[in-house]
C-alpha cells in the first residue's frame, strides 16, 4: 500500500492534535450516563468559562462581532439546526429542525430551546451557523480556515467573531462550509458563479462588493423577518409550526418566502410571508401588481410607504411597500390564526420594524 507509506509522516502531529480534541470531549461527556438517551451529550460547553457540557436542546445565546473591530454586527443571519436519527445499529437519518433569526442591533442572538422531538428519534447534533454578506460564515462545529474542529463554541454567552471576507478566500470552500439550509442558501447563492469560476481556473469577479453592508440588493430573507415567537406573541397560538419556504416559487436573489405551517391543523392556522427585494422603481411596479391581482383589496397606507389589506374566504392579507429600500412584503394569515385583521397588520408592523433594523438607510445599497 504505497499511498499509506507516503502518508505516515504526519501521524504524530495529527494524533497530538486529535488527542487535545478528545480531552475536551472527555471533560464534557463525563456525565453522559445520566442523561436521557433521546438526546446525545453536547460536544460543547454550557458557557465559555465552564467545564460542564451544554445541552444539544438549548436554548442558545451569544453575540456576534467583527473580528477586527469587535463592533457588534446587527442583522446577521442566525441559522440553527438540530439533526435527528432513529434506529438501532443500522441507524438512519430522521430529519432536522431548523430555526432562522437575526442578530439584534447589539449583535446578540437567541435560539429557543428545542421543545419537541419527532417520535422515536434522538437528537444527534446541533449546528449554529452565522452569516452576513461580506464576512466568512461561522459554524459552531468547524472552523473555516482549516476545517478543523471548533473548540470554543458555548451554549450560552457564546462569542462569534466574524472575519471579513478576503478576495483570496475560496467561494467553493465557503459554499461547502455553509451547507444547504434554505435561508443560508438564499443568502449565499450569489457565490455559485464565483465558485464555479474558481474550479474553471477563472478569476472571480472583483471583491469590492463584498464589504459589509454593500453589494447587490438587499440581502435579507423572509425567515429573518418573522419568527414563530412573533406570531405566537400576537395570536396566543400554543401549537407548533413546520417552517420553510413556500412551494409555489423558489427563493431567488430578489424573492424569498417563509411558510409557517401549523402542525396538525388546517391551513386556516397557517401564516405565509413573501418578500421581494427590488430596485425602487420595480418595487413600485410589483406593489401595483399585487393591488390588481389580490382579492378584497383596501388601501390603508398604515405600514411603511404604502400598504393594503386583503381578504378572501378564510385568509387575511397585508401587503406593504418600503419604497426607499425597494422592498415589497405580502403577509397572509389564516382566519383561525389571525382572528382579526388587526393581528395580520400587527405582524406586518413587526416585519417592517425588523426590515428597518436589518437594513438601516445609513448603510450602502439602501435608498439609492
Amino acid at each position: 500500500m504505497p499511498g499509506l507509506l507516503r502518508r505516515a509522516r504526519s501521524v504524530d502531529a495529527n494524533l497530538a492534535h486529535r488527542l487535545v480534541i478528545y480531552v475536551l470531549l472527555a471533560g464534557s461527556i463525563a456525565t453522559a450516563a445520566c442523561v436521557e438517551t433521546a438526546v446525545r451529550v453536547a460536544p460543547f460547553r454550557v458557557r465559555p468559562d465552564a467545564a460542564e457540557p451544554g445541552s444539544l436542546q438549548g436554548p442558545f445565546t451569544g453575540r456576534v462581532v467583527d473580528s477586527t473591530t469587535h463592533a457588534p454586527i446587527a442583522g446577521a443571519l442566525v441559522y440553527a439546526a438540530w439533526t435527528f436519527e432513529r434506529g438501532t445499529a443500522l441507524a438512519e437519518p430522521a430529519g432536522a429542525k431548523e430555526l432562522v433569526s437575526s442578530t439584534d442591533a447589539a449583535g446578540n442572538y437567541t435560539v429557543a430551546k428545542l421543545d419537541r422531538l419527532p417520535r422515536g428519534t434522538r437528537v444527534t447534533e446541533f449546528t449554529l451557523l452565522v452569516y452576513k454578506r461580506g464576512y466568512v460564515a461561522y459554524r459552531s462545529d468547524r472552523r473555516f480556515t482549516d476545517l478543523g474542529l471548533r473548540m470554543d463554541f458555548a451554549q450560552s454567552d457564546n462569542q462569534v467573531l466574524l472575519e471579513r471576507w478576503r478576495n483570496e478566500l475560496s467561494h467553493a470552500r465557503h459554499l461547502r462550509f455553509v451547507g444547504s439550509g434554505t435561508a443560508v442558501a438564499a443568502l449565499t447563492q450569489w457565490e455559485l458563479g464565483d465558485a464555479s469560476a474558481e474550479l474553471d481556473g477563472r478569476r472571480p469577479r472583483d471583491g469590492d462588493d463584498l464589504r459589509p453592508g454593500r453589494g447587490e440588493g438587499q440581502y435579507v430573507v423572509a425567515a429573518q423577518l418573522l419568527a414563530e415567537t412573533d406570531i405566537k406573541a400576537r395570536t396566543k397560538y400554543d401549537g407548533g409550526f413546520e417552517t420553510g419556504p413556500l412551494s409555489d416559487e423558489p427563493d431567488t436573489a430578489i424573492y424569498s418566502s417563509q411558510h409557517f405551517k401549523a402542525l396538525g391543523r388546517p391551513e386556516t392556522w397557517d401564516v405565509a410571508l413573501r418578500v421581494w427585494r427590488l430596485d425602487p422603481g420595480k418595487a413600485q411596479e410589483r406593489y401595483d401588481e399585487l393591488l390588481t391581482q389580490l382579492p378584497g383589496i383596501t388601501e390603508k397606507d398604515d405600514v411603511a410607504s404604502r400598504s393594503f389589506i386583503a381578504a378572501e374566504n378564510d385568509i387575511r392579507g397585508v401587503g406593504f411597500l418600503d419604497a426607499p429600500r425597494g422592498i415589497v412584503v405580502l403577509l397572509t394569515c389564516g382566519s383561525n390564526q389571525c382572528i382579526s385583521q388587526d393581528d395580520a397588520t400587527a405582524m406586518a408592523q413587526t416585519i417592517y420594524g425588523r426590515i428597518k433594523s436589518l437594513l438601516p438607510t445609513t448603510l450602502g445599497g439602501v435608498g439609492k
Partner: protein
Amino acid sequence: MKRIAMTLALALVPATAAAWEPQTTHAGLAEQAAMASRLHKRLVSIGFSGGLFEPLTIPPADAPALAAALKLLSPTHGSVPDGRGRQSALGWLTAGAALADIPASQGANHFFDPSTGAGWSAPDRDLSGKVRAVFGRGGIPDKGVPAPDWLSTKTNPFGVEQFLNQYAKAVSAATPGERSRYMAAALIAAGAMLHTLGDLGAPSRVRGDSGAQLEPLGSGNDDLGSRFERIAALVYGRLGVPGPSRTITRTHLRDYVTSKDGGGLADVIARSYFSPNTLPEPTRVSSEVTPRLVRPQPTLPVRLNLMAANRDDGTTLRSSNGICLARYRVEHDVLRFSLDDECMMEELAQILPEVAAYETGLLDFLLRGELTIAVAGQITVSAKGLGAGSLELLAEDDRGVRKSIATLQTTTSEQLAQVPAPPTGTRVVAVFRGIDAAGEPIVAVGAAPLAH
C-alpha cells in the same frame, strides 16, 4: 492520561453508526472525490455551465419518495434541496452518498470479504447477551448482497445501470429542465455508489467481522455501531475529511472493490489492518510465542517485543510504515492483542485519503466516456476505447432544446459517425450507449458548438 481521556470520551458518547456516517464521513468523502475528479469539467462540457455548482432541480412532485427521503437529511450537511427541489450538482452527489443508507437495511449491502466473496452476514457470535437481547435478530437482514455485486445489481435503485441510464438522458433529453432532473438523478446514483465503495475502507467490513458493527457505544441500550466509524465522524465530520492521496485507475468497475491483482479497496484494507474481532488470538507465553492469526494478513513480525509487552501499558504492533495496527500486552502469562481509540485514529489518518482516492477513481471511471466532435460541413464523432453500441446525435437550439438528428449503431472503430451538420442550431451533442473495449457498460458524451 490522554489515552484515558480519549477512551472515556468515546465510551460515553452515545452514538449509533452502521457505517461511515452517511451525512458526515460519506458526504465529506463524496465532496472530496468530486473536487478531485473530472466531474466539474464533464458537467460544463455537456451544458451544465456551473459545473459542480450548477443548480439542478428535481421537482418534489416528480419524485415524491425521493423528496421524502431527502427530508430526513440535515441541511447543515449540504445535501438538502430547497422547497422546489433545487440544489447544486455537488449537493446532489453528496445527497446520494447520504441516501445510500436509507432505509437503514440497505447498509447490509455495503460489506465484502475478499477471502470468501461473502457480504454481510448477521453476527451470531462474539456478541454479549445484552447486545443480542437488545438487537434481536429481526432488526437487520440475515444476509446482504456483497458490495461489488450490489454496485451492478438491477435491484439496486442507485446502481451503475441507474447511473448510466440517467446520465445518458441528462444529455439527450429535450429540455433543459428535463436534463437538469436527469443529471441530478445520475449524481444521486453516483454518490450512492461512492458510498458503497467507501464503506469498504472500514476493516471490519472486509474481514467478515460483522460483530464490530454492533459494539455498544453509548449509555443507551440501543446505541450500537462501529466504534471505528464513529471515531471517523467525531474527528473529521464532513468538512474535515481529507482529500484523496491520488486517483486510482481501474479497467473494470468491480476492480475498484476487488481484483485479481489485489488492488481493490477491499483487498488492500483486508490485508493491511486488523478489525476488533479478527486480531491475533490470545497466546500463552512460552519459549516460543507465535500467536495464531485469524487471517493470513497482516502478518506479525518474526519476533514480538515481549519485554515491552510485559509492561503495564504493553506495546504497539506497527506496520512497516509505522502505523499502529494493534496494541499487545502480556497479562497472567497470556499475550493479548487489542485495538484502542488512538490506534484507530492513526489508521483513519491513513485510510481516509485512500478511500477518497478510490472514490475519486470510481467517479472518473463512471464519467470516462468521452466523444470528440468535429464540425466542418460534416459532423464527425470519434472516440477511443469504445466497443459496440448506439450513438445518438442531437442539435440544440437557442432555447436550449435538443432534437435528435441521427441515431446509428456503431462498432469498435475510432471514428463512430459522420453526418451532415444541421442547418440550424447552436450546438451539437452526442451520446454513446454501449460497452467499452473492456466490455464494461459505458455512456460516452461530447458536445461542440455549431457555427452558422
